[in-house]
């Protein structure tokens, strides 16, 4: 099966890249070649092809194929940016290992195995979070991330293992307790509010490319893994029967959507605005899942994938703007192309039509209104707050352009990456079927798991 070959290739390349990491140009080329080959392998594979390693089963569903391609494409752009714009030799092996782990998470067929691979994927970026450790608090931020992942991961795997070994005649409260632990464990890993404190420290201390790796690649992968684990674990019928878990998901979702948007509105740094924007979108996506409806699930997964791409675009642009400002206030005067990429990425993050972010947000808000007027209104308010935050940042970036000379970046990598992502978002918006159909196929599986009969 091609996905297994892609995982093996990326894992092997990560080891090779670790050995060669000091030769930046060589390791960057190796990384791009490995990611490119993995993309080709997955794109050439048939949907629903299966395979096994030892006794672990792999399945390349339509969603797994599309999400893997999106994740690997984002990784390729990140490698390009780090190579040409912000050389950091630790980044390349980390990116390759994250790529292999993310494809494994998306294609594995057993909930426990998916969870195990996910924790590995979430721990690997710690290697790229730390830099110039005596000048900043990046170690403290990485330690806090490690603690959250270890705690959330262990609790989540424990709850899944217990659910899998429960006899059938258990009271519903036992299943509810396990489902609650699972939801909280994922909230810890996804940095949903109020479990976002580790993310807040990471934002100010970690390099922009590493933040993009986490919020652009790993957060969407974790969200899809959460949905897949719900389907495969057999907990969904119990969740439907007892409304409390659904209420918990809705509560965390609404808190993150509104809280993230409010924090984004008050953010003074560009990268903080982006990360709180992702958290707000994550909240909206959790509300979509909590509705346990087809449009809600399609919208939720679509929102997360688009948010990942836009977060990458905006974080890389923010990194360039900060570097070019050299300690001053980031401005379009010193990096106009990066500033443009940041503003355009903001449009994608909010889901402005005709970009592909629009259908997902529309589905979730529509079904939220059908579910309850209050929830629908809260999501619209969150979207409006995000719009205000992005507009504020855009005005701050371009406000002082008039009357002073504009200096175009010597290496406009963030601008180029932004243009590529924007083109992909626009193309997806023009032909949304190619993006939404694989997610709809997964939503069908989700709904079947809720009501197997």
């Amino acid at each position: 099966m091609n996905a297994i070959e892609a995982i093996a290739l990326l894992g092997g390349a990560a080891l090779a890249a670790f050995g060669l990491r000091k030769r930046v140009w060589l390791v960057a080329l190796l990384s791009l070649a490995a990611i490119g080959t993995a993309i080709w392998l997955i794109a050439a594979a048939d949907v629903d092809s299966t395979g096994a390693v030892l006794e672990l089963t792999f399945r390349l569903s339509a969603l797994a194929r599309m999400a893997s391609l999106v994740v690997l494409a984002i990784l390729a752009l990140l490698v390009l940016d780090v190579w040409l714009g912000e050389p950091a030799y630790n980044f390349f092996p980390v990116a390759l290992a994250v790529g292999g782990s993310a494809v494994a998470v998306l294609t594995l067929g057993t909930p426990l195995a998916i969870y195990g691979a996910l924790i590995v994927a979430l721990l690997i970026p710690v290697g790229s979070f730390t830099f110039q450790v005596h000048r900043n608090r990046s170690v403290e931020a990485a330690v806090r991330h490690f603690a959250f992942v270890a705690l959330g991961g262990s609790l989540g795997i424990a709850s899944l293992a217990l659910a899998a070994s429960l006899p059938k005649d258990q009271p519903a409260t036992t299943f509810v307790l396990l489902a609650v632990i699972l939801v909280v464990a994922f909230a810890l890993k996804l940095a949903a509010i109020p479990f976002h404190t580790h993310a807040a420290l990471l934002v100010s201390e970690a390099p922009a490319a590493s933040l993009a790796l986490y919020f652009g690649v790993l957060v969407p992968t974790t969200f899809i893994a959460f949905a897949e684990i719900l389907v495969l674990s057999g907990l969904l019928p119990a969740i439907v029967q007892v409304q409390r878990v659904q209420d918990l998901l809705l509560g965390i979702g609404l808190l993150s959507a509104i809280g993230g948007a409010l924090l984004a509105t008050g953010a003074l740094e560009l990268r903080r605005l982006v990360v709180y924007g992702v958290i707000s979108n994550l909240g909206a996506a959790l509300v979509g899942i909590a509705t346990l409806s087809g449009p809600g699930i399609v919208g939720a997964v679509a929102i997360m994938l688009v948010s990942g791409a836009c977060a990458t675009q905006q974080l890389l642009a923010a990194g360039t703007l900060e570097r070019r400002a050299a300690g001053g206030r980031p401005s379009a005067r010193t990096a106009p192309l990066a500033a443009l990429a940041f503003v355009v990425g903001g449009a994608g993050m909010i889901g402005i039509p005709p970009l592909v972010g629009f259908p997902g947000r529309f589905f979730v808000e529509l079904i939220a209104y059908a579910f309850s007027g209050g929830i629908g209104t809260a999501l619209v308010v969150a979207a409006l707050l995000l719009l205000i935050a992005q507009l504020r940042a855009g005005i701050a970036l371009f406000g002082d352009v008039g009357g002073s000379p504009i200096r175009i970046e010597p290496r406009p990598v963030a601008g180029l990456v932004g243009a590529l992502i924007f083109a992909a978002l626009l193309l997806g918006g023009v032909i949304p079927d190619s993006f939404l159909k694989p997610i709809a196929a997964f939503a069908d599986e989700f709904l079947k798991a809720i009501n197997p009969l």
Partner: protein
Amino acid sequence: MILLGFIALATLAATGTKQLRYSAAAFLLVALAATWISTGVASLAQVAVTGCSGLVAAALLFVAASDARYGEEPGWRVWLATAFAATATSAGFAALRTVSAETPQLPLFGGDPTGVTVQVAAFWLLASGAAILLTARTAVRMSLGAVLMITGVQLLVRLVTGSSLALTLLFAWLEVVVALVGAFLIINERAAIDL
């Protein structure tokens, strides 16, 4: 039953000491006892893999310490972690017991095939690890808490029907990755302090 008591004492030793090297040695004892306790519900290959991962994880933490004095003073955290672990273990076992509901015949020494001791040990390790993680100030105790929790997770996974060697291998690798990342953070943290 004796192994359960041994795991509890070794966990207390790992939690109570300041020096990371002693914590790593105590963790090795925890890992070996946890491996031994699961012999009743696991194949020889699974037991060997789990034992090896515990050994590697303990070795990584031991090496990361660099010298015999480095560590984190536990202080009052030992008592909080122990009280929390004892309460959470009994509450967890009462609420989430998934193995035989009948009163089992527990052997004094070695693993029991009903899985009761395995589950109690798992809950204890998870609760202790969580308490250590939540009260830790530096990477030293966070790494210790994380590897204890993963050891507990490995025991719970062992109780899943049809638990395969592949899953055992996956979680053994996970334990090694957790210890590796913990060791990386310990070294970086120390470098930041020394500079």
